[in-house]
């Protein structure tokens, strides 16, 4: 019976509506053939055209000028992480400029081996002067300086190299501008010992990265202290039933939404004005934003709990606080921990950016490197941020999985 009915309805015969009624375009065609939709399309295109103009879209420039970014990208690929360990030794030999007779060469021993010889001494301004380093460390960087009797040093030669035997000889005419008097010729020899160590940049960035992680931690912690109690007042299932309850619920939810909607960067700028540049401004910016974000998540997780235990605990004659402690809290604690973990993770990411506007942390050194066009150094900070963010993301995911 039922089957026959079905067949009859599906068939085109027997009092079926006019087939013309079904004869309209289907699929994408149906959308365009309507006049109203056509109008929508016109308005949409106009909006895109205006947007194109005001945002100064210029894809040609994007492609043509791409090579300009080459320095940045090559810099990013060569982060300043390690440097060779160098041993520096310095030695001075006296030199008398001006004076009477040609004298003896002046010789000094170099700590760690070798000698520095300056000849002749005294020397006349404009005359030939020979500086000889012998038996020092091989293949080392060498700087030669002329130091006058008040201690002012001026360079003679920079970034010279000793040869494989540790020898170096320089003969040059002493400029006539050098006035007569007693001088010292100083040789600075820097040798790479072959060992590597972390560069100054890396250590600074690492230090600031740790600061960033703890900045996020403190921000999350203070926000936790405020948002957990508030979240109970912002949970519909706990607050319903009385006018006062609803009022509190709406006020708390409104507060969460307002706090959540203020961008942390703006908060950081404001806080930097209030408490001064530095990490604490960043902490406060994170606290304010996170109260809203965490409070909302907590409230929603309270709203999603099983109402059964609440009913059961209420039926025993327990008061409101006891119901929260014995029926609500045990159900939400794992989720609260998980959300807090997640928020910390987000806040680490946020605090890298907060540093850019003076909120302390690694962003603060990053923006300095960028402003000085030190791309290798900037790369160090960027890579470090990337690694830490990925690691935190992974760790928080693993921990959250265990909790819930």
């Amino acid at each position: 019976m039922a089957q026959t009915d079905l067949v009859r309805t599906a068939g085109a015969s027997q009092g079926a509506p006019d087939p013309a009624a079904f004869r309209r375009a289907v699929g994408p065609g149906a959308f365009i053939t309507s006049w109203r939709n056509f109008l929508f399309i016109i308005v949409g295109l106009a909006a895109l055209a205006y947007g194109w103009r005001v945002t100064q879209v210029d894809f040609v420039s994007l492609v043509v000028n791409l090579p300009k970014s080459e320095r940045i990208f090559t810099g990013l690929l060569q982060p300043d992480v390690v440097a060779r360990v160098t041993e520096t030794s310095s030695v001075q030999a006296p030199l008398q400029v001006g004076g009477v007779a040609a004298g003896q060469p002046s010789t000094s021993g170099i700590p760690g081996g070798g000698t520095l010889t300056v000849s002749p001494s005294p020397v006349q301004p404009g005359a030939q002067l020979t500086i000889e380093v012998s038996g020092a460390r091989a293949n080392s960087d060498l700087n030669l300086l002329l130091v006058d009797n008040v201690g002012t040093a001026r360079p003679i030669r920079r970034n010279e190299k000793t040869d494989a035997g540790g020898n170096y000889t320089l003969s040059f005419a002493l400029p006539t501008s050098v006035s007569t008097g007693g001088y010292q010729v100083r040789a600075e020899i820097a040798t790479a010992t072959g060992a590597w160590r972390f560069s100054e940049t890396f250590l600074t960035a690492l230090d600031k990265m740790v600061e960033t992680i703890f900045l996020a931690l403190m921000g999350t912690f203070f926000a936790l202290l405020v948002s957990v109690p508030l979240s109970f007042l912002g949970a519909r299932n706990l607050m319903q039933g009385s006018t006062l309850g609803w009022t509190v619920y709406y006020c708390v939810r409104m507060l969460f939404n307002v706090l959540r909607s203020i961008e942390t960067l703006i908060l950081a700028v404001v806080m930097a004005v209030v408490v001064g540049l530095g990490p604490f401004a960043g902490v406060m910016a994170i606290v304010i934003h996170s109260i809203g974000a965490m409070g909302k998540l907590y409230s929603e997780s309270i709203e999603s709990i099983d109402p059964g235990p609440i009913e059961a605990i209420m039926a025993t004659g327990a008061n409101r606080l006891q119901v929260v402690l014995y029926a609500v809290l045990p159900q939400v604690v794992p989720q609260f921990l998980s959300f807090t973990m997640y928020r910390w993770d987000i806040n680490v990411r946020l605090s890298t950016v907060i540093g850019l506007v003076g909120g302390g942390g690694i962003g603060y050194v990053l923006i300095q490197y960028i402003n000085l066009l030190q791309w290798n150094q900037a790369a160090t900070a960027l890579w470090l941020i990337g690694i830490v963010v990925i690691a935190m993301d992974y760790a928080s995911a693993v921990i959250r999985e265990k909790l819930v």
Partner: protein
Amino acid sequence: MLRIQNLTKVFPGGVTAVDNISLTVPDGEFLVIIGLSGSGKSTLLRCINRLVEPTSGRIWLDDVELTALAPAELREARKRIGMIFQQFNLVKRSSVMTNVLAGRLGSVSPMQSLIGRFPRGDYDRAYANLERVGIPEKANQRADTLSGGQQQRVAIARALMQEPSLMLADEPVASLDPATSHSVMKYLEEINRQDGITVICNLHFLSLARRYATRVIALKAGQIVFDGLPAEIDEERFRAIYGEDAVEVEIR
């Protein structure tokens, strides 16, 4: 003795769940309420301890008018009314012991319960009640590690902690298999017979009502359509309660 007078509950959507019911339950009775889903059984039960606020009508437990109590007095009155549920309503992440002790929350000082401490006597009593429902060895296990029947027994132990004079059971065996159903019903029967606790129990299965009830009432669309002994429900009455097409399913 429980007296219900002209009790009506209309939900905000306009659905009348309980329609002008009057009922007297003498002490020591094992009253089973039967009826289709949506006939108002659960609402009637929840109106008694005011988990659901009645729209109109009055309820007395002995000489206390439950429907007239202020919140603090209501909490006091609830201590005398135990309740168990279809979904057991244990706090799943808490231990069995904590769940059972929760039955004392109305009686311990709020400060003590705040730090999770109960009087020593309560621990002993909780253990005794777990022994009574046959699962003392589960005391330190998490509640969600127990089977459905065991969880319902924990719920009974929790309700017994209140030392109630009235026990409300909202479809206590609807989520359980037939064998477990009987074991749970037997515990309810035992506390009814031995402790003299009045039991009001919602049930789906008429066979269980016949086996355990001393009195049966049947609800249909929020009204009482039968009130009498379990044996009096014959084929004709059954059809009147459950509808013309209904066929009785036995649970043995």
